[in-house]
């Protein structure tokens, strides 16, 4: 029997659940796949509807983690298997080496010695990074890491030589940690649905078709364009922007469910655009705008009143290059106004949905439904987007609820 709780995933839901459970007096382990905590939220520019940056919310939780001795977290780590039952699980965690020590917070000398540049996954490939890097400026833990792909090369040795002594350790080996816990909270989150799978929406084939998460990175001051929303092809400011809603969501051929956040994300991104480029015209192609609740409805209403924002009821089903260099034509049927609409824009944004991590990465001992969402059972409690597509607020709420469930599980067994 164990009173400890395992949280798989250190995104917003995971760290919230971990902090809540730890503050109720339980030992908590967080296992995070990336090199930093904060998950998808760390990639955002701002939250809706208040439009505050993600540091607000993340920072306070990081502080609660730092100051709470009951929380242990592993980054660049993955749960390999879970066995046992409620109250007594044994969990195998594989922790991959980062080839650096926690004191390694500045890798500039190492980067100067690095020769290979690879697409930066944190910015969805819109820029590149070196073989030694900090995932993003706000990364927690604030520890530079070495790309495992270069670990055994001469380049890694050159980097190690360039770095101050004691910060790089190329001899590190993967470790397997065995944990004994009483309950498991699954907060494995989501990834943006692969836009290349919609063969009619042009991503990867037509220039200047980007995803909503790419726009978040562009709009972020720490992003690849230092906060400027530009066309990837020529780095020019777009004068017209088209949003393609339900790009893969509510579609039996892709994600059969509503991803919940894409409408609000688009409305939020329209606010970025209108602030940065007051002259830009925005076109939103949608099936129906889903902005549930009083606050979101108010947000939608405010955007709708903007005369530079045009809402066209009809899903985009064809995307092709336009007549101007770099422009994109979005084709839809205007089901209210009538007729086929071919709207030429400078930048097209696919409002892609959320696919649960469980659709591709499955952990032995956890049940998943056909879409990859985690099915709850006693002792194994999903929260956040591992459970269903939600916004950050609902994700945090479900994390608190999951923490309570986990505590109940271990307390009941112990009693």
């Amino acid at each position, binding site marked *: 029997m164990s009173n400890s709780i395992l949280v798989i995933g250190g995104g917003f839901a995971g760290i919230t659940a971990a902090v809540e459970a730890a503050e109720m007096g339980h030992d908590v382990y967080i296992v995070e796949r990336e090199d930093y905590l904060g998950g998808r939220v760390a990639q955002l520019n701002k939250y809706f509807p208040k439009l505050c940056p993600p540091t607000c919310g993340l920072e306070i939780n990081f502080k609660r983690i730092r100051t709470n001795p009951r929380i242990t977290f592993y980054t660049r780590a993955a749960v390999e298997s879970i066995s046992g039952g409620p109250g007594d699980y044994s969990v195998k965690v594989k922790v991959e080496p980062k080839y650096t020590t926690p004191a390694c917070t500045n890798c500039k000398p190492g980067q100067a010695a690095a020769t290979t540049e690879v697409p930066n996954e944190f910015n969805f490939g819109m820029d590149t990074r070196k073989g030694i890097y900090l995932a993003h400026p706000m990364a927690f833990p604030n520890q530079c890491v070495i790309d495992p792909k270069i670990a055994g090369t001469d380049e890694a040795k050159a980097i190690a030589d360039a770095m101050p002594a004691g910060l790089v350790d190329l001899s590190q080996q993967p470790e397997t940690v065995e944990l004994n816990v009483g309950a498991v909270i699954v907060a494995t989150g989501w990834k943006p649905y692969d836009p290349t799978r919609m063969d009619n929406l042009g991503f990867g084939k037509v220039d200047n078709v980007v995803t909503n998460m790419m726009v978040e990175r562009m709009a972020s001051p720490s992003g690849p364009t230092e906060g400027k929303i530009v066309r990837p092809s020529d780095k020019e400011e777009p004068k017209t922007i088209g949003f393609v809603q*339900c790009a893969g969501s509510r579609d039996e051929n892709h994600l059969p469910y509503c991803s919940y956040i894409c409408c609000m994300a688009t409305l939020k991104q329209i606010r970025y655009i209108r602030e940065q480029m007051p002259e830009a015209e925005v076109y939103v192609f949608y099936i129906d705008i889903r902005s549930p609740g009083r606050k979101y409805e108010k947000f939608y209403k405010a955007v709708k009143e903007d005369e530079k924002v045009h809402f066209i009821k009809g899903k985009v089903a*064809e995307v092709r290059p336009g007549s101007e260099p770099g422009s994109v034509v979005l084709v839809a049927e205007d089901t209210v106004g009538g007729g*086929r609409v071919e709207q030429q824009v400078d930048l097209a944004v696919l409002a892609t949905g959320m696919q649960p991590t469980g659709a591709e990465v499955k952990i032995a001992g956890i049940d998943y439904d056909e879409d990859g969402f985690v099915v709850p059972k006693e002792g194994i409690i999903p929260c956040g987007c591992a459970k269903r597509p939600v916004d950050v607020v609902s994700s945090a709420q479900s994390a608190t609820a999951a923490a309570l469930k986990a505590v109940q599980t271990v307390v009941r067994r112990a009693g």
Partner: protein
Amino acid sequence: MAETKKLQPDIAFVKGVMDAGGDTVNRCYQCATCSVVCPLSTEESPFPRKEMLWAQWGLASKVAGDADVWLCHQCGDCTKYCPRGARPGDVLGAIRSNAIRYYSQPRFLADMLSKPAGVVGAIIAAMVVITVVAGLWAAAVTHHSFPIPEGEIAYHKFISVIPIDIIFLPLVGFVAFVSYKGITRFWDDISRGAGVPTSYTGTTPAPSLGILISKYLVPAVKEIISHERFQKCGQTAERTRGHKWVLWAFIALFIVTTVEMFVVDIVGNILRFSGSDIVLETPLALYNPIKILANIGAFLLIVGIWMLKTMRSQKTEEGVLKSAAQDWTLIWLIFAVGVSGLLAEILRLAHVAVLAYPVYVLHLGCVAVLFLSLPFTKFGHLLYRTTAYVHQRWAEDVRAGKAGFGLEKPMADEVAEH
């Protein structure tokens, strides 16, 4: 105050669409993906999104007035991309099959000919009629031995052109009448649906016959013969070849029949009754151009319909389109016409009289039933799609102020001047 319009859903109509293969219609949530991915959809009036809504809501009169369902060749692109599995392609197919039933009178023939058993029954009935007439004719007029005439096989010995005409000409008249009634009702409905202005007496305008043919029918037929539109169909583009061959075969065989009827039935009989020595009779020699055309027609018909059958099986299996009994019935009926015709020719050349004459009767029976089914079954798409193609061109001109209520004439003159 905004105008209030009360919608009266026609539940029976919705049920009819669902029963005819459009059972997925209620899954549609109107995203309009279908109207965009459709390679045949038009700019001003895209389909099939609006038809899906009308069919869901039971707006029977809206659907009846919609020529666009006939501009669809059911390639299945919309069904492939539909995010809800609502299968718009199949729903439009169901609407079309119900429309044919609606326009064809008497209804019982449509019911009968839409079922495989009904078709087989009709073929047997036709064979009985043909045999009885042939028997009577042999006994009263030609005095050939019956049912297997002696000597060299020649089908006119069994049943000559006069009794054939006695059977087929009334059939042609009946089919033409039913088709005409159906097409004119359809024309009225789609004119209303297209918002074409009506006269003060409430009649819908139509161009005069000459202009209808020269300006609208001819270009439409050209487009149909070349399959220009059908070829744009994405998912089932391969289907067009088989369909084109079948259509060309029908045209070739129509030419053969018309020429033969003129030469043998009319000129031949005139010569005979005027006591001339010149005998114009079938069978034609194999090198006769008309016979060559007939054999090419037979080849195209059999191979074309087989390609259609193969393609439909494959596409049905892949889930691109659904196939109902009526689809297969028509395919097998056309196949039976082609194969029985070819077989009759082969058996005749092989001198197998015992088999040749019965197969010939079977062939005549199949032809009669195929002909009869024209306005009543899926075969009716020949009538209604052609009408829709013609109407589309004409309604465009009417909307542009170039046609309707006698406006075509000055336009026609203008064209002539150029």
